[in-house]
């Protein structure tokens, strides 16, 4: 069980405090999934950082009763003069598992060839993303955090991601964050919308979708109707 309880996040800016969201609550049980929709700047990535624990909420708390992944395919934690293999060893050491049995999977998935043993700074963007995704799959998690914008690649890569994540690991929970309704509709059983610092919950994805379309064209009366 993951529960986000009355969470607010405020950043200090040059124009005073800026509240990204206020008093947001939701929960996710093992094996379930949730889509979070929101326009650019609605606080989706901030939410991912809070859930992953990289940042702390200003008020409220987040309880993690399951192993939650780092944001899927996040390549920002790579040290640039470390090789792909070094980076695999690093995450394995952090999570306390043996890296050796994982090498074949990572080599196969990333298709890096000899570059697997070259420093990451010589990688293309696509190679970096493939490595980052493979490392996310190498560690066993109960719940994956997915920021759709981070998983950019060609069709083949997307197919393989899809297979690894939604077929081989379909028993796991995940939170998918996106501004693209299609992704949420395809993968999520339910969705919420982040809008103007609030979280709006709905009985099903279609209702969330309809509401989200309204936020895009800014219809205040519709937004008011769903305000909790």
């Amino acid at each position, binding site marked *: 069980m993951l529960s986000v309880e009355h969470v607010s996040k405020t950043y200090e800016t040059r124009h005073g405090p800026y509240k990204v969201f206020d008093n947001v609550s939701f929960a996710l049980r093992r094996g379930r999934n949730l889509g979070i929709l929101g326009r650019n700047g609605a606080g989706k990535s901030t939410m991912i950082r809070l859930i992953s624990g*990289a*940042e702390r909420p200003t008020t409220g708390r987040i309880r993690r009763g399951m192993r939650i992944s780092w944001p899927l395919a996040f390549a920002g*934690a790579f040290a640039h003069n470390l090789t792909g293999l070094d980076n695999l060893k690093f995450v394995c050491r*952090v999570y306390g598992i043996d890296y050796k049995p994982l090498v074949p999977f990572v080599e196969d998935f990333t298709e890096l060839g000899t570059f697997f043993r070259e420093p990451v700074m010589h990688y293309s963007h696509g190679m970096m993303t493939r490595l980052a995704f493979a490392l996310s799959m190498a560690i066993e998690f109960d719940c994956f955090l997915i920021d759709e914008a981070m998983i950019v690649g060609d069709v083949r890569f997307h197919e393989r991601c899809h297979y690894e994540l939604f077929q081989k690991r379909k028993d796991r929970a995940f939170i998918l964050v996106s501004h693209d309704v299609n992704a949420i509709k395809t993968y999520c059983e339910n969705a919420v919308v982040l809008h103007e610092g609030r979280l709006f919950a709905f009985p099903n994805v279609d209702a969330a979708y309809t509401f989200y379309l309204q936020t895009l064209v800014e219809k205040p009366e519709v937004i008011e109707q769903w305000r909790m």
Partner: protein
Amino acid sequence: MATISGLSFFQSLEIQGRVLHALMMRELITRFGRDNLGVLWLVGEPMIFTLGVTTLWSAAGLAHGGTGIPIVAFAVTGYSSVLMWRNATSHCIGGIEQNKPLLFHRSVLIIDVFLTRIALEIIGATSSFIVLSLFFIFIGWMPVPNNLLIVLAGWIMLAWLGASLALLVGAGTAFSHLVHRLWHPVSYLLFPMSGAAFMVEWLPKRLQDVVLYLPMVHGVELLRHGYFGNVVRTHYDIGYMAKCCLVLTLCGLYAVREASRRVEF
């Protein structure tokens, strides 16, 4: 024992242990790479500094005046002490900014980043001190330490000072960029006052009272008392230095906790 995280103390210790190991291996390669000497630079870098300073001070005849202290031993003990209280802090200063993305791994904490860098600096400076001392003792330019236990005590006190200062200043960077800006001039100015390049005994009484406010001076004096024995008259108060270190440690730990709450991307 139950903790907030629901893990026992020993489970938490095990996690922290493996995180520190992971960070240390990562840090060694990111800092020194695999080319040429690689990880040996951890020891090589402080050695080159110490050798350079030793050469300069010998040429300048710094310890002259019938003090009976061999100049090489004076420089090696002095500059190695500076490395102990200064380097960990200098490396912890960029610690949060450079390692922030690692916080996406739930078990990696700010304190682990600092502890890794502190440990590496202490290992480097200590190895450099040992290697240089053995070498100079072997070729007869340095005497054998008079009392190894006192040398060790001085060294441990300097390590404690360096570690606590590193935690406080490193975490301080999360509160204000000024900390970053100010540390370099402060450490530069502290160097000549730290007791590395003089013995307290050589100073006029009024100046002695002033420099003895600095905790590092007590550490260097203790170290040299251990090294040279009663050839020199030393001035130190370990109780005072321990109190300073304790206050710095508590403030440092508090600052690290607060800094962890402030991390922003």
